[in-house]
């Protein structure tokens, strides 16, 4: 009986204990790699990497002033991209108020200065970033975005508080140059016709812009 117990004990030591003892003395622990591959370190300096967070460019289009016809609008925009989803944008545009219809009806001019300027600052959300498939092999990045903000519309030197909202489609020709189409509505209160009224002016523009 003693022989059997001794044989079993010896076998157990050889199968379990001895290899573990040998490993702990002669081999590295299992949580460390047996071989450390040589690696070349490249110290990274993020500040040195060119950052393109700003986007700017001109736009041109049509500005329909409710009740006063449609005129061309020329403007400029500057945007700051905070994340891949959100950007903030300021725009400045110039258009003219169409007075011909009013002059024919009333025999007088509505305003002395027909120049109309708009500026606004707002936030935008890239709703549907994706790709435009031009051909089987050629694709361009694109995005559909929503934009809204606050600003002013200056008619005959008088500034009017303005809410604006719209949507646009942007196509990236290269990653630092894009083309875009945009529709916006500008809502403001005026007294141009002698009584207070809410104007809803629609603006449709085409634009290009560069990132820097």
């Amino acid at each position, binding site marked *: 009986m003693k022989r059997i117990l001794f044989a079993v004990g010896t076998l157990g030591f050889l199968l379990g204990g001895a290899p573990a003892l040998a490993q702990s003395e002669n081999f590295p622990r299992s949580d460390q790699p047996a071989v450390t591959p040589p690696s070349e370190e490249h110290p*990274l300096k993020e500040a*040195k990497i060119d950052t393109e967070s700003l986007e700017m*460019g001109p736009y041109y289009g049509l500005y329909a002033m409710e009740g006063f016809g449609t005129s061309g609008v020329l403007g400029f925009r500057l945007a700051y991209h905070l994340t891949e*989803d959100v950007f903030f944008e300021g725009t400045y545009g110039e258009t003219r108020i169409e007075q011909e219809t009013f002059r024919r009806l009333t025999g007088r001019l509505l305003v002395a200065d027909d120049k109309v300027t708009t500026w606004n600052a707002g936030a935008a959300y890239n709703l549907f970033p994706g*790709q435009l498939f031009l051909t089987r092999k050629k694709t361009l990045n694109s995005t559909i975005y929503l934009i809204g903000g606050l600003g002013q519309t200056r008619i005959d030197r*008088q500034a009017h*508080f303005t809410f604006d909202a719209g949507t646009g489609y942007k196509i990236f020709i290269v990653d630092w140059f894009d083309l875009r189409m945009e529709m916006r509505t500008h809502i403001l209160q005026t007294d141009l016709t002698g009584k*207070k009224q809410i104007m809803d002016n629609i603006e449709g523009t085409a634009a290009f812009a560069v990132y820097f």
Partner: protein
Amino acid sequence: MGRETRSRFLWILLCLEFFLTAGAASGEETVQKASVVEPFLEIHTGPGRSYPVFYIAERGEEILLLKRQTDWYRVRLANGKEGWVHRNEIEKTLLAQGRKKGWMDRIYDDHIAGRLEMGWEAGTFGGDASLFLRMNYLLTGALSMEGGAGFVSSNLGSTDLFQAGMVITPWRTPWFSLSGTVGGGVVYSTPSSLLVDVTRKTFHEAHGGIGISIPLVRNLFARGDFRNYTVFMGQARIREFREYSAGLSFRF
């Protein structure tokens, strides 16, 4: 399109050409090199998670970091392929080099270190709707210069304000900062065309106030201001107005 508009458009085009040339020239000078340390690195076609992955770089491949847009880096691989990698993936490479960038580091990199702050605020001025654009330049840790432009729209007409001042920020924490401001400026008042006297008038103003600034994300701040204005209307007449505003600003 009139001659004036055409010349303005040409001027804009010339400016853009300058930026295009400058942008193209500066791109190659700032290339940084790194190695992929994760088992794989997903390369996207564009700087966003919604743009598809078109290539997967393997561990050990060298990448050149060409430029950055928001949280995405444009990278070039040894085989010439170029695409976009998220900042988190790049940080894993940084981690392997013994240095990790946490969110506090990002805050410091992106906006605590910045000196220029630009933003806009909407609110009320004397009870009427107002909108201001404001720009601050940090001179020292607590003192900054401020410039601003804004307008107030009311039933009686509109008012434009152009102002300059000094801002002192004695209390700055990672969560918010409080400041006080004093300054002055010019006020242009344009009466509504419905009124009899529609002559545009110019006044001067002096103001003082307090403000709070709260970091939201990266270099974006929420800010709020209360200011008391004294407008000198001429002939020893003085009027007081109060401005309550809130808005957003960026620090560069």
